[in-house]
């Protein structure tokens, strides 16, 4: 439950509130950005403006999603956000997303509170030629990690790291999904039908069987 200040609550009830967001990324040189214009002091730290409505949308639309990841898109790469391009440094850096509520005239910040805390995990820089340039990232909340047990177990290599002579997953990489279509031309080889490369000898036998039918 988020507690809004009475002034912010009154503004929201009137329908005249302006919302924006601020994000603080505590990498070695902390990056502090907010979605409006002009430098904004929040709790003693100065936030740089990126003039981006998306930050407001993120903080506005993800209501009740405290246990989920929050995706952030910083569009139109601004000089202030360029530091984010140094992905190595900010990867897994602690991040705090704040929601800011302004009065209808945009002059007074009525309330600000932490919307989510977590760590930045994926960081994708996307440049569309003739379109928008954006940096997308997501804040992985702490609750996300609580449900995890053990490590990754999907491949033969992973399993053999745990136990070298355990070959349980040795066929996993071949067990992909195959589409077989009814009523089509009879495939010349089994490999043509399934996309797999069969062991020699067996393929001949299978083909011969198909031809006989």
């Amino acid at each position, binding site marked *: 439950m988020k507690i809004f200040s009475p002034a912010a609550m009154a503004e929201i009830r009137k*329908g005249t509130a302006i919302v*924006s967001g601020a994000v603080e990324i505590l990498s070695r040189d902390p990056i502090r950005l907010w979605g409006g214009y*002009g*430098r904004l002091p929040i709790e003693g730290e100065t936030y740089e*403006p990126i003039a981006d409505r998306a930050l407001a949308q993120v903080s506005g*639309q993800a209501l009740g999603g405290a246990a989920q990841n929050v995706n952030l898109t910083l569009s139109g790469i601004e000089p202030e956000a360029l530091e984010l391009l140094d992905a190595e440094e900010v990867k897994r850096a602690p991040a705090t997303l704040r929601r800011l509520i302004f009065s209808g005239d*945009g002059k007074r910040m009525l309330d600000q509170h932490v919307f989510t805390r977590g760590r930045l995990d994926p960081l994708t820089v996307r440049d569309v030629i*003739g379109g928008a340039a954006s940096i997308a990232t997501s804040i992985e909340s702490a609750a996300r990690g609580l449900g995890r047990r053990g490590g990754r177990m999907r491949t033969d290599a992973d399993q053999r790291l745990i136990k070298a002579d355990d070959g349980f997953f040795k066929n996993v990489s071949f067990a992909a999904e195959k589409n077989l279509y009814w009523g089509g031309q009879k495939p010349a080889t089994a490999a043509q039908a399934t996309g797999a490369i069969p062991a020699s000898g067996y393929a001949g036998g299978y083909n011969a069987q198909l031809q006989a039918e």
Partner: protein
Amino acid sequence: MIVYPRPMPLTGMAQQLFDILRVDQAAPEAGGYMGGVQSGFPLWVATWTTARNTRDVSDEWTAWLSTMRGAQRRFLGRDFARSFPRRYPKGFGGLRIGTTAFTGTAATWSEAIDEQDNAQLTLTGLPVGLVLSLTDLIGFRWDAGGAAPGSYGRRTVARVTEASVVNAQGRVTVGIEPPLPYFIPTTAQAHLDYPACVMTIVPADTKVAPIDRRLVATGTVIAGVQDLRP
């Protein structure tokens, strides 16, 4: 030397859209209650379409747009319908403050927010009897941090929404929209001549028209969005 933000050529517009962009996240209810909040702060947006101009004017616009280098550079976007207040379409010729000619710049400005959240702007040092009509524009210009004094690299405009007339003391109070951004320095100048805001070209919506047999590009569309910085 061309200085950026670069002013726009003086004439040559056939159509213009110059308005305030606000983004609402509305939550309408069947009962008629409209909830919701506004996302971010208001900005000026504009779209201009060039007219069937003379060849000189057409070439001027094509050259001007080329110097913008897509979205790289900034320009002074302005409302071609309001180069001056509506009552003074040709400028302030003949208007005097005492014995000095009025240039369009106010001596001081101050803004107050009334009980209904309307922004009320008070200007002083204007000629007595000057009329500010609805949708007249008031420009604000100030220097970027570290820039030479008087370079006025930062600008924004406000639109008059409650008209008024300058009183005998040279003072006037008008309602404006949008309210001024809170970070405008108090040393900024308020002015009434060629009010403009710093804008960036929106390349996706800007389209140069092909030239016809008169070698004139008619209907070049230029789209801009305000670049508001402290």
